[in-house]
Structure formats: structure tokens, C-alpha cells
């Protein structure tokens, strides 16, 4: 391929004056080479420090500075952030201490939860422990005198009802962490195990591990109540019912409106009120207050909920009713097997139903939507419903309403609803990069969560980077200015020397624009050659520097990514082009007649 004529002339002229060209190339290379080395040192040093901070997850760890109450939803939402590599709830420090015994030693060790992708474990010679497995910190392994593969006996103790109780678990050591990972005596175990330990320590039973203890039943919640009275309430009574009860709205309704909801009519002479809580649901405490306020008025209180969907296989409407014999008699309903409303009832009483259409199934399965998904539970058939609906105790409905604000589970083994553990007292968090930590730090501060992070180390690195960048640019600007001045002077002088030659070219018919390009191309060629020389010089010098320090530092301190070379190449070409413009402008002022005159 033949080069365009001006490019060829520019090259041939530079080649003809090769000594001058070489001097110019070396002059620019002598500016570029130290700049490249300086940039390489800056980049390499900062990169090495950055990588060290990055490599060690300890530097990316964020810990809460005090005990928190964080819900499962908080963790679910927080995990969605792009700047998080790993986050896991932690338990109360008081609950996390377990006694570990080996043949030789016995120690109290802090139990830490872990899970898949835990960077602290994975980057420190560890593997994620599975069920009945654990990972030990270096100090813990040393103090216990155990090695990988050994079996530990973990004892979890608690005091309940003034009695000391304990359970024991065998854990296999699957890894021992590097000393730098954790300087404390710690044992890392799967989150489920750690969570169970806390449950046990809090006095509750852990049925899947056969650890005995108490149970925590979910409280009951309602959105309001129907009030049936043989007489109307006075306005004072009405106001009184909204004081200290959580109820905010009281409406007198017609019998048919009541019937639409509950599928039966109240006695003809009864006044019917619908009393609702507008924002938060009411608890059984509110029901008791209402009950006390209506003492002596022969009131029938029927709690209700809104928007709790319970379905059976036939999508039959389900109504919650708990009434005493006296109340069913007043309302003209058959007696309910489970009787009156009782806040202390367990599922043995709540799990009953009256089924319509002569359904003889001894047990039916019901489903309801709660936080975290659906809950499925059985109810026993206690006989025929007095209408086309399924009738269940209102306490059952109250539990499911609770399930819409707090997580509940149905424990199949115990055949009961239980409150799921929804609050955690802390977290172990690793940011994706150290650069993400300042933003996460700001986030936690905005959430009023005090945290501990290596923010100062990161800030120090950033300040160092900023300082070095300024120094580099200061030197670079002086160097570039010098290089530009040298190039401008050289090209201008070259055009002055070649006035006659350029005049001859103009005489031969080259246009102003064509001769304008002559010094521009020469500048670009000189800078390309300078880049090659400077690049070679940089490679040699950086190799020597790295060779000298590799043993002390362990990594390259003078290095540049290939994109930098591309960027520097483009920048120098632009600077060269700008530097050549004066000389280029000078060429356009050369008249062809000057060729004749010069002769």
C-alpha cells in the first residue's frame, strides 16, 4: 500500500534529516519516559495498596457498633444492593458463647454464623461448613489443639426457670482459618445452627434438633369488632370506646350489612355497631378494654379482620366466630364446639371447624397468605356448619392476621403456629469493594446505625492517591510544556529552513491545505517514534525497579495497564498536532513565488 504523498514526503524529509529527527525523538522520549515511570510508580503503588485492602475481606468488613433490632425483611432488602458482597444476621453476643471441649481442652468460644460465599472463610484457607461442621479461627484451633478433620464437642447451656440446662452437639472441623482472618477465638458454623443456638439460649425449644424448651405462640390481631347490644350506645359510650382501645371509627350499621359479612342476622331488637382500627390492628388487650368498658350492657363482641384470605380446596367462605353457649342462644345459633373467645387457647382448640354441605372429611387443609409466603395448616371437622360457610374459631383468624405483620410458621411436629424469629441483633457485612465502604458508611449513618469500618484506611489511601496524582500532573504539565515548546521550535525552524522546498511544492501544484499537513504529519511521526522509544525505556526501567523491590514488597510497584499506553499515545498525538499548528500555519504563508525568488 502506497502512503499518501504528503505522508511520504514528511517521512522522507525526516529520514533525510535523521540526526535532527533522532535528536527530537530522544528529546521527547526523555520527557515521556520519566513521566511513564512516574505514572507507573503512582499506579503500581496505589494499586498494590488498593489490592491489599481489597484482597483482605477484613478491610471490607462493616460491623455494627451496638446491638440492633433488624428484621428479616431488612436483610432481604439490603441484600439487593449492588455494593454488598455478603451479609448475614448475627445473634446477641450473650447467646453466642458456647462451650467447646476436645480430648485435651475445654474453652468458651464465640459462635459466629456463616453461609455460602462468606469471603472471610473463602479467602482465608477455609471452606463453608455444612450441617454439623465448623470452621475455627487460627487462635481457636491453637487453643483447642485441634486440626482439620477433628471432632469437637459443643455444649450449649442455658438457665431456664432457675434450672441449668444444656444440649450437646458434635461438630467436625472442616477448616482452620489463616491467622490474619481473625485474631479472636471463634468458631464459624452454619447460620441455621447459630440461630438454633440462640433460640435454645432464649429458653425456647428447637424441635428439629430435639432440644427441649418453651414455645412462643403468635399473638392475636384484629382490624376491629362487631358490637351487638340490646340497646343503643350513648354518644359518650361511643367516644369512650375509642379511648385507649386502638379503635378509631365507630359506625352504627343495619342488620343486613352485618348479615352480608357473617351470614346470619342478629336479634331484631339489637343495635349493631362496627368499630374499626384505622391504621394498626388491635390486640387482645384492646378487646379486654372494650369488654370492661361495656360491662353490664349484655354486649356481644365479635372481633373481625380485613383482607385475610383463607382458602380451602373448594374456595368456601370462611367465617371466624367464637361464642359462649349464652351468646349462641341469644343469637339463635347452634352451640359452637370450641365455645367463647379465649386469648389463651392453643392450636388444639383453634384448629377446629364446622364444615358445610355434609362434608364428612375428618381433617381439611387450609391455606393463608402471610409474610414470607403461604402457611398451610390442618383443621379438624367438628360437625356441620349452620350455613354454607366454614366456621372456624376467631382466634385462628387473629393468628393469621398477625401473620400479615409478623412472620409466623406452622410447626407440623407440634401442630401449632409459632412466631418465627424475625429480629436479629446485628450483622456481618462485607462490601464488594473498599470503594463502596464510604457510601455504605453514609447509608448506615443516615439510618442511625453506628458501624465500625476501615473507613479511615480507605480515606488515607484516597488522599494518598489524590496527592500523588497532583504531583504527577504538576510534573507532567511542566514536562509536556517543555516538550511542546521543543517541538514547536523544532518544527517552526524546520519550516523556515525548508521555505524554498515548500515553495517548490506549492509551485508544482500542491495546495495550501496539503502543505499545511506537512509539519503536522512530521510532528505525529516524531511523537509516534518518541512513544516507541519511551515505551521501551519504561519497560526496561519498570522491569529493573520491580526486580529490585519484588522481594521486599511482594508485588510490582511500577506497572501500568495497557489502556494507559493507548491513552498516553492518543494524548501525545493530540499534543503533537497542537504543537505543529504554528509551523503548519507558517507553511500556508509561503508563496510559490518564493521558490523562484529563493533561487
Amino acid at each position, binding site marked *: 500500500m502506497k502512503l499518501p*504523498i504528503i505522508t511520504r*514526503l514528511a517521512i*522522507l*524529509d525526516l*529520514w*533525510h*534529516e535523521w540526526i535532527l529527527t533522532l535528536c527530537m525523538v530522544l528529546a521527547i522520549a526523555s520527557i515521556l519516559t520519566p513521566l511513564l515511570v512516574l505514572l507507573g510508580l503512582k499506579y503500581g503503588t496505589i494499586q498494590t495498596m488498593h489490592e491489599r485492602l481489597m484482597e483482605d475481606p477484613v478491610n471490607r468488613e462493616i460491623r455494627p457498633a451496638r446491638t440492633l433490632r433488624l428484621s428479616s425483611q431488612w436483610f432481604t432488602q439490603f441484600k439487593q444492593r449492588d455494593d454488598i458482597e455478603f451479609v448475614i444476621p448475627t445473634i446477641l453476643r450473650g447467646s453466642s458463647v458456647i462451650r467447646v471441649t476436645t480430648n485435651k481442652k475445654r474453652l468458651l468460644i464465640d459462635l459466629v454464623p456463616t453461609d455460602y460465599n462468606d469471603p472471610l472463610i473463602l479467602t482465608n484457607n477455609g471452606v463453608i461448613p455444612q450441617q454439623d461442621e465448623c470452621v475455627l479461627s487460627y487462635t481457636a484451633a491453637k487453643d483447642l489443639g485441634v486440626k482439620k478433620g477433628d471432632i469437637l464437642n459443643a455444649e450449649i447451656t442455658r438457665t431456664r426457670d432457675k434450672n441449668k440446662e444444656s444440649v450437646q452437639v458434635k461438630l467436625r472441623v472442616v477448616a482452620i482459618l489463616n491467622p490474619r482472618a481473625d485474631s479472636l477465638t471463634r468458631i464459624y458454623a452454619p447460620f441455621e445452627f447459630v440461630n438454633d443456638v440462640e433460640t435454645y439460649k432464649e429458653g425456647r425449644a428447637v424441635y428439629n434438633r430435639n432440644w427441649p424448651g418453651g414455645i412462643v405462640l403468635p399473638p392475636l390481631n384484629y382490624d376491629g369488632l362487631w358490637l351487638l347490644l340490646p340497646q343503643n350506645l350513648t354518644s359518650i359510650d361511643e367516644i369512650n370506646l375509642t379511648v385507649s382501645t386502638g379503635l378509631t371509627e365507630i359506625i352504627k350499621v343495619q342488620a343486613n350489612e352485618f348479615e352480608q359479612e357473617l351470614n346470619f342476622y342478629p336479634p331484631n331488637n339489637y343495635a349493631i355497631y362496627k368499630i374499626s382500627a384505622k391504621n394498626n390492628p388491635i390486640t387482645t388487650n384492646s378487646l379486654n378494654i372494650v369488654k370492661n368498658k361495656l360491662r353490664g350492657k349484655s354486649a356481644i363482641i365479635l372481633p373481625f379482620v380485613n383482607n385475610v384470605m383463607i382458602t380451602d380446596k373448594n374456595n368456601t367462605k370462611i367465617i371466624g366466630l367464637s361464642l359462649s353457649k349464652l351468646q349462641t342462644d341469644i343469637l339463635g345459633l347452634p352451640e359452637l364446639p370450641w365455645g367463647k373467645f379465649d386469648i389463651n387457647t392453643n392450636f388444639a382448640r383453634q384448629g377446629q371447624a364446622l364444615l358445610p354441605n355434609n362434608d364428612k372429611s375428618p381433617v381439611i387443609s387450609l391455606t393463608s397468605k402471610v409474610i414470607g409466603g403461604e402457611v398451610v395448616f390442618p383443621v379438624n371437622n367438628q360437625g356441620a356448619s349452620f350455613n354454607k360457610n366454614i366456621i372456624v374459631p376467631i382466634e385462628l383468624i387473629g393468628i393469621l392476621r398477625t401473620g400479615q405483620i409478623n412472620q409466623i410458621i406452622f410447626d407440623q411436629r407440634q401442630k401449632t403456629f409459632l412466631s418465627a424469629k424475625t429480629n436479629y441483633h446485628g450483622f456481618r457485612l462485607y462490601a464488594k469493594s473498599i470503594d463502596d465502604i464510604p457510601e455504605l458508611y453514609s447509608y448506615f449513618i443516615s439510618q442511625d446505625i453506628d458501624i465500625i469500618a476501615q473507613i479511615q484506611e480507605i480515606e488515607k489511601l484516597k488522599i494518598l492517591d489524590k496527592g500523588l496524582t497532583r504531583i504527577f500532573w504538576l510534573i507532567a504539565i511542566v514536562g509536556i510544556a517543555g516538550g511542546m515548546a521543543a517541538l514547536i521550535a523544532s518544527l517552526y525552524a524546520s519550516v523556515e529552513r525548508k521555505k*524554498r*522546498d515548500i515553495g*517548490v*511544492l*506549492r*509551485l*508544482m*501544484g*500542491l*495546495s*495550501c491545505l496539503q502543505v499545511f499537513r506537512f509539519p503536522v504529519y512530521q510532528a505525529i511521526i516524531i511523537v509516534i517514534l518518541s512513544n516507541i522509544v519511551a515505551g521501551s525505556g519504561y519497560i526496561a526501567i519498570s522491569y529493573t525497579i520491580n526486580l529490585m523491590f519484588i522481594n521486599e514488597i511482594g508485588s510490582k510497584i511500577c506497572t501500568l495497564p495497557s489502556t494507559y499506553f493507548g491513552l498516553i499515545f492518543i494524548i501525545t498525538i493530540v499534543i503533537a498536532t497542537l504543537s505543529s499548528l504554528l509551523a503548519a500555519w507558517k507553511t500556508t504563508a509561503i*508563496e*510559490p*513565488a518564493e*521558490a*523562484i*525568488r529563493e*533561487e
Partner: protein
Amino acid sequence: MTTLVLELKNILKHREQGGATFELYIEQLQLYKGQFVAVVGESGCGKSTLLDILALVSKPNSCEQFTYYDSKTIDIKQLWEQQQEETLAMLRRLHFGYVLQTGGLLPFLTVLQNLRLVSEINGFHDSKIKELAERLDISGILNKKPQYLSGGQRQRVAILRAISHHPQIILADEPTAAVDERRALNIIQEFHNIAKENGTIIVMVTHNHNLVAPFADVTYSFDVSDVSDTLTQSYLLKQ
């Protein structure tokens, strides 16, 4: 010799340098195909100024007619007035050849590269260059740079470069000034042959009237008069 190629009428070129003014008047100048034109005069009479005007590199201050006749008529006067520098550059490139006093060769190119330059600027490759080089006895120096050539060799290379793209007009500015008389005679003989063989117009500026007289079809000289201490006027005269 009847085809008119270039015609100039009532042209004035005004020049100032160092406080002194020089004016060149051209009443009429007609150049015909194949004509060997000698322009003779002493230093400072306006020879190079005339050459500048003919080479389309210097704009006349006033002009009645300046026409180039090719397949179509080109009004150079109008091109100057409209400042159509690109068109003038194209005319120079295609139809004019130049031989300067010391050759005007580019020092950073070899002889061969110098010879090919004009053809390349015009966008064609002339395969006859080496053949012509043989004829002018310069085939042995094609790879040399101009600074290694003698004055005669340089001029022959310049002549060959001037004719390499087959122009209609060759302008030669004292091409024999730097060579001995024998070489000068050879050069003028060569120009004469080119004019006759190719129909090329040769305009040769020289101060040596005797050297050029035997070959010139027409000779122009200058009538120079110092009107004042600062004004010199020169009139082109046909002999």
C-alpha cells in the same frame, strides 16, 4: 506554430521592497504551441517578475487580458479576481513545468523520487521516466540525492522533472546560470528539441542573449528606466 496557448494584454505588476518601487508593464505577450521564447535582460529588469506572472504565482495589479487556451478558454484574470487559488494550483500542476536556477530539486528526495513527484502529485505514473533519463544521460544517478550531483546533472534532472508530466508550458529561470558554457549550450539545445518534438512552449529567462539567440523563435527584452530615486519602470519589448 499557430496555436495560441497563452495571451496577456496590458498587464501591470507593482512591487515594493526596501522603500523602492518597481513596476513591470507587459503590453502584449502571446505564447504559441512549440515556441521557444527567450526572455533576456540584466539583473533587476523584471525577468523573475514576468516568470512569476506566467507561472500563475503572482497576481498582476492590473490586467486587461490573461487567457489560457486549452480545449476550452480559461480566464486567468478572472481566477485571480475570484481568488480561486485551488484552480490556479491545478493549472500549475497539470500544464506548467518549472526549471529553476539551481534545479529546484527537493533535497530529501532521490533523483528518481524528484522525477516522479510531479506525476504523483498529478495522480499518474509515468513509465517513460527511465527512458527519458537515458536520453538525458542521467540514468546512472537516479538513486542519488541532489546534493551529490554536479550543476549540469542537477539542471538535466530539473529539465526531465519539468517535462515528466507533459506540460504545455515550461518556465525556465536562468537554467544555465550555474553551468559552464558547453553544458549551457547542451541544456538550451535540449530545451529546443523538446519544444519542437513535443510542441511544448519553452519560456527561458536568461541574461546571456548570445547563448539563446540561435535557438529562440522569439526574444523578449526589457526597457528599464529609473523614473525617480524610488521608482523603476520596466517595459517588456518584443525584439
